[in-house]
């Protein structure tokens, strides 16, 4: 299905990442947002609140992030596409409802414009410290989808992608921006509506008598009903059977949780979205995402100019992690190490180490937050890693 | 003991004998749902209910209609019963089913 042209501001624009994200949501057909103000994400809903009444939608400013992250789910069950946006402290408050959305298979989008933490931290400065929280933040077992844009253009593109993935898998999808990507202004090209592919909601075609709200289809995702259509369905965060009824049966719990995980995990390879630079002959691979990938690319280019075979791997879709691709790269002859650059003190690097399994050295270029890495610093680490191998040889 | 869709005995008698006092209503029980709270017995305006001697599967004594002729079918028992195990009906409304009776029965 193509995008509704009313929501698509086609043309070439000069937007910051937050604004582009709002435009992405509108282009994706989102007509309901609820939020609570928090730096550096607020500009997203400010733009949304400006634009959406003209499209027959609404923004509702709630009393806190707990309310915002559940109000959007009410709107979804009424038939709307909905999202909320926040930053670290609010993201922490939203964890319960990420779990509720995962459990009740409520398609929705949550944008986290990351800032320095822990706690109130650095409200106006960047970090990438919520990456593992994005993966594991709500209690219990579930699988999640998270995207990490590195430019305003991608804030637009990946927000649409997030809505599409949410509908396809009936899951909450997280857009993990950061303060710099959110606040940097660049050229953003918004294509015409007929070039934007939209995944519609998977509504059941069955009559109410035959409908079982959590009976999965072939791809493990059940078809939805919406309130007010006579389906008389029950939705609960308790462990439930295919009718949606609560159960404490261990086998039913096992079946449900395994399905919630498998519907996404089984598709991890299909979900892989990476950007690769100079990987054909790379001896040192730098893995970086979000804003850090731009600094890392500069460092890789500096290394190449010095004759060092460095390359960049950028996960665009970060959860599920591009495990298969990384394993493939790590098992290649001639690779001397992987350098993970991220604005935290070691989060995605743990995932890289797990995937690589000791086959090549993995090194972290961590940063506690507040700014990006300096390309020089990453360049020097790349040189060190390349030299260490030279010496060994 | 009376169960769903089977009227209390007094009601049946009433249709065959016009000489005895005609009950104005009766109750219908789903005894297997009863948890024996006694609300229906305590708050029945004409006091026509009492605990029966029998146990249900949950181990409670469901109520029984001890004075069928006194039941007015006011349905206060139906409003009070927290377990949806009893309700009252007025017999004057009940001898002729409404047009959608069949449909209504399906929902029970």
């Amino acid at each position, binding site marked *: 299905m193509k995008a509704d042209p009313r929501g698509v501001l086609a043309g070439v624009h000069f937007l910051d990442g937050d604004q582009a994200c709002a435009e992405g949501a509108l282009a994706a057909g989102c007509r309901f947002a609820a939020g609570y103000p928090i730096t550096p994400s607020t500009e997203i809903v400010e733009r949304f609140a400006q634009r959406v009444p003209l499209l027959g939608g609404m923004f509702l400013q709630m009393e806190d992030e707990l309310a915002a992250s*559940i109000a959007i789910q009410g709107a979804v069950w009424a038939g709307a596409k909905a999202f909320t946006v926040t930053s670290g402290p609010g993201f922490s408050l939203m964890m319960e409802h990420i779990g509720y959305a995962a459990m009740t298979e409520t398609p929705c989008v949550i944008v986290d414009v990351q800032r320095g933490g822990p706690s109130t931290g650095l409200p106006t400065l960047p970090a990438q410290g919520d990456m593992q929280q994005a993966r594991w933040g709500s209690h219990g077992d579930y699988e999640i989808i998270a995207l990490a844009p590195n430019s305003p253009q991608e804030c637009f593109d990946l927000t649409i992608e997030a809505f599409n993935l949410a509908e396809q898998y009936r899951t909450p999808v997280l857009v993990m921006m950061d303060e710099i990507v959110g606040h940097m202004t660049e050229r953003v090209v918004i294509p015409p509506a007929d070039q934007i592919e939209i995944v519609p909601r998977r509504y059941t075609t069955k009559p109410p008598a035959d409908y079982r709200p959590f009976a999965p289809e072939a791809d493990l995702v059940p078809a939805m009903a919406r309130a007010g259509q006579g389906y008389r369905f029950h939705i609960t965060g308790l462990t439930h059977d295919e009718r949606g009824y609560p159960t404490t049966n261990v086998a039913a719990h096992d079946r449900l949780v395994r399905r919630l995980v498998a519907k996404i995990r089984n598709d991890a390879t299909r979900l892989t979205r990476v950007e690769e630079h100079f990987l054909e002959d790379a001896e040192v691979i730098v893995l970086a995402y979000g804003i850090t990938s731009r600094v890392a690319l500069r460092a890789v280019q500096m290394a190449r100019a010095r004759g060092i075979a460095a390359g960049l791997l950028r996960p665009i879709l970060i959860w599920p992690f591009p495990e298969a691709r990384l394993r493939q790269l790590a098992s290649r002859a001639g690779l001397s190490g992987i350098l993970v650059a991220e604005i935290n003190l070691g989060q995605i690097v743990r995932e890289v180490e797990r995937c690589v399994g000791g086959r090549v050295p993995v090194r972290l270029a961590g940063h506690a937050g507040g700014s990006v890495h300096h390309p020089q610093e990453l360049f020097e680490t790349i040189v060190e890693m390349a030299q260490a191998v030279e010496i060994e040889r | 003991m009376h169960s769903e869709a089977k009227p209390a005995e007094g009601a049946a008698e009433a249709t065959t004998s016009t000489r005895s006092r005609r009950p104005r209503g009766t109750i219908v029980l789903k005894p297997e749902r009863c948890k024996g709270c006694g609300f229906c017995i305590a708050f029945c305006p004409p006091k026509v209910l009492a605990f029966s001697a029998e146990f249900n599967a949950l181990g409670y004594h469901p109520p029984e209609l001890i004075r069928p002729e006194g039941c007015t079918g006011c349905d206060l028992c139906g409003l009070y019963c927290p377990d949806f195990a009893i309700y009252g009906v007025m017999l004057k409304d009940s001898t002729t089913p409404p047009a959608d009776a069949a449909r209504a029965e399906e929902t029970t």
Partner: protein
Amino acid sequence: MSTEVYLPPNPVEALLRTDRMPHIWCPGCGIGTTMNCFARALQQARLDLDKVVIVSGIGCSGRVAGYANLDSFHTTHGRAIPFATGLKLANPELTVVVYSGDGDLIAIGGNHFIHAARRNVDLKVICVNNFIYGMTGGQVGPTTPATALTSTTPYGCPEQPFNLPYLAESAGAVYVARWTAYHVRQITHSMVEMFRKRGFCFLEILSPCPTLYQRRNRLGDGLEAMKYYKEASVTRHGAPTKEVAISFQGPILVGKFVDIERPTYLELLNQQLARTLEAQYTGCIEDHVRS
């Protein structure tokens, strides 16, 4: 001939997921009683049940949603109201009922309660107040009367409880009533009035918790609680809500306290947008959702 006697079904059956009976509530608990009233009120108000949605939070009363044969949502603890807010605003043709307990709505969900009342979101909020956290084993709650014993105030509750009608009115509710589980006809009547009214409506129903509140305070069983409600209740419609606070085993003022008119959130939003945007404004989210 008994077979010719037609007996209409129990009005509550149409509202129940009968395949989930018997329910989990204790003998003598009043939550089921309130559901009888709810069923009869829906019937009396002649609402299309396909357009009635019930939203609950967590706790004993939170289980109402799971037993009601409606589109029903058992949400997270305290968050029934913001979920219901999203639901109602995204599809205003729905009648959205929030049915939950005192701990859920007023303690963990207290912030949402006051803000939804302030905005006058068109929600019918039914609070079953049993003075205690039942599902978790009888802990002190925001409505536990001072001096009452609970598992976490074993020497008596030192706190002043919320006076819920006063709270609701102060926050902006357009309809506020209180009854006890004893007042089944009055509850039904109030529910019908709520269904017919637009805006944030609040009904508090005092209800027995025989297993935890009654027993720990040596107040007998559920029936004893109902008898207390019967004897201690004084109906005073229009009583100033400030004066309807509840004390331990004290008198209970019941009645309809507030019934005023005030535009709902959606009405005000539509007005505001139409006034500001003029011809550019083509309507609220409803049309979009329906398309």
